């Protein structure tokens, strides 16, 4: 497959009229810069004579920036490479190619003391609050473990105080530190996961589907908490989710992924009011709105089929077999990303 040109993303693009988090500071810095990020997973076949039969391009030449203090939403169907992108930025999965820089420093392949230092600045909140907490550890120790690993507290008293402070920060009481994870509900567990991520006072957090596993009435509590923590601690988020309504609510800008590539990126107002890529349009049309009258009036033109296997992606534009506007050129050539309005980037032949 032909490699694609990277995103020519303009980071000086102005924010829209709405006042967004971080937008009030002149000359916003890019906290994270991702250039041509590629992650390939080898696929083997056979047990005795193991052979490499191909690669899965989980993430395929993705470039974007995350500005200090903003929330970049990353949406897409399962298998589109959202989670792998997040983990490759954090260096949990080593990127196959491409560059990731944090505060201007290249962090791919970082080791030793540098890596440990970086881990303080970048944390992750996981989707499943049930499997991401150690069932044999007391909650206080789950939250406090990073403090010990990084030697950030002196003595038992300071440790206990800091854990109590973290519990309080996420809306739990300090008395809960001695309990085990199974004694908590899903929403409370997610709060524990957030407290652990906050323990090292990170600058950047990858939130990987942090509310998808929660009940509807609890989701709003966690979304508000994540927003409040951003305001209080000046955090920058990469917010990965498949729920477009949640992403719209929380994000400053939104990137839409399909089969390992970003097909559209824009500020949240443009992407929801004026989606340009046929895939983004289809995704938005598919989201059911909790309002029967509005639902009846909406255009429900839907796309056919399902996301293809990343082991054998379609030629040309990966979306062409499902696209209502597909033409000859889409089958043959991968579209280049282009900026069609300030800060609004689309990879689609319709805009050639």
């Amino acid at each position: 497959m032909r490699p694609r040109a990277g995103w020519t993303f303009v980071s000086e693009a102005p924010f829209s009229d709405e006042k967004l988090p971080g937008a009030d500071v002149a000359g916003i810095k890019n906290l994270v810069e991702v250039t041509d990020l590629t992650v390939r997973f080898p696929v083997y076949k056979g047990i005795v004579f193991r052979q490499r039969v191909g690669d899965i391009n989980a993430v395929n030449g993705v470039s974007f920036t995350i500005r200090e203090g903003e929330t970049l939403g990353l949406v897409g169907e399962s298998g589109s490479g959202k989670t792998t992108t997040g983990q490759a930025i954090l260096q949990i999965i080593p990127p196959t190619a491409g560059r990731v820089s944090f505060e201007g420093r290249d962090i791919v392949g970082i080791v030793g003391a540098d890596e440990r230092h970086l881990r303080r600045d970048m944390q992750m909140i996981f989707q499943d609050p049930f499997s991401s907490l150690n069932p044999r550890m007391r909650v206080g120790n789950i939250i406090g473990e990073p403090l010990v690993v990084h030697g950030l507290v002196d003595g038992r008293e300071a440790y206990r105080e800091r854990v109590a402070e973290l519990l309080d920060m996420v809306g739990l009481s300090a008395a809960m530190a001695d309990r085990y994870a199974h004694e908590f509900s899903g929403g409370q567990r997610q709060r524990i996961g957030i407290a652990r991520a906050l323990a090292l006072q990170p600058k950047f957090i990858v939130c990987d589907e942090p509310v998808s596993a929660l009940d509807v009435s609890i989701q709003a509590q966690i979304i508000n908490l994540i927003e409040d923590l951003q305001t209080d601690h000046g955090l920058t988020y990469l917010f990965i989710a498949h729920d477009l309504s949640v992403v719209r609510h929380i994000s400053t800008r939104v990137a839409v992924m399909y089969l390992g590539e970003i097909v559209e990126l824009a500020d949240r107002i443009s992407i929801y009011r004026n989606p340009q890529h046929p895939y983004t349009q289809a995704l938005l049309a598919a989201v059911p709105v909790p309002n029967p009258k509005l639902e009846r009036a909406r255009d429900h033109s839907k796309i056919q089929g399902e996301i293809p296997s990343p082991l054998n992606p379609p030629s040309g534009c990966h979306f062409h077999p499902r696209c209502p506007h597909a033409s000859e050129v889409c089958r043959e050539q991968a579209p280049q990303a282009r900026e069609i309005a300030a800060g609004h980037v689309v990879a689609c032949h319709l805009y050639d």
Partner: protein
Amino acid sequence: MTDSEPLLQVTDLTTHFFTEDGVVRSVDGVSFDVNKGEVLGLVGESGSGKSVTALSMLRLIPSPPGRIVAGEIRFDGRDLLALTEDEMRELRGNEIAMIFQEPMTSLNPVLTIGRQVAEPLEVHQNLPVKHALARAVELLGEVNIADPAIRAQAYPHEFSGGMRQRAMIAMGMGCDPMLMIADEPTTALDVTVQTQLLDLLQDLTRDSDMALILITHNLGVVARYADRVNVMYAGKIVEKGPADAIYDAPRHPYTIGLMASVPQLDQDLKQRLVPIKGQPPDMSNLPSGCAFHPRCPYATDQCRSETPVLESVGQGHEAACWVDVRV
């Protein structure tokens, strides 16, 4: 059965689980009915009793520890709770079909898809294997699986999540059921596939006059597909009515709270979400009076001591609340 009589009439259904920690009142006096060709939405959070209600209708409650302790389920003129186990087996998958949330665990991994879609046809319609398999291929085509003859020979692991759920729908539709119960049929799937599947179910409902009970926690899905809605909380229906009335003028504080807590695509961007405070209740130790009162902003002393019952608040619209709440 006359035409005016509903297809399914559930009256005072009560299903309890007798556990070491005490009695769990999963379904506690639930009454509703479903008409022919209608889509009824059953909404609630995990633990609210939606799935237990569905399983009770098919008498699939694991016993022990569970038991239907009271109530009546009239389906097509018969009392389901009075049928023998053999008669019940005759009915399941034939007159009432059910689709579950996780298609991978509901399909047998060592049988081909075609074989599994054919099975109810052999059992209920006494079709010979060959004819049943041929019909299975037709059914797979009807649920929009491409190359059905070839795909019928595939095993479940070779199907994607969306295709597995299509196969489940084909299996359910095989015997032309009068009622289909779909329990969170698209929760594990992507939004584009969710729309395809629910549109398919809706088309099938319209074409065959089948009734559909759609169990979900997704308020958007209910808004798009349901004609009427039942909202469940802690084993009880707290509000029911036509979909438009429920969304336009919800009257139970729990329904109101749910509506306010979900971000919506058409919402003002600066609007902050208003969550329902607290946690869903522990089902083995429910609060006194109205089970929602510890989380309810309108709760009064009466709510703490007395359990409210459903009362009419509009045309076909009922709510179980002591306080007259309007938004």
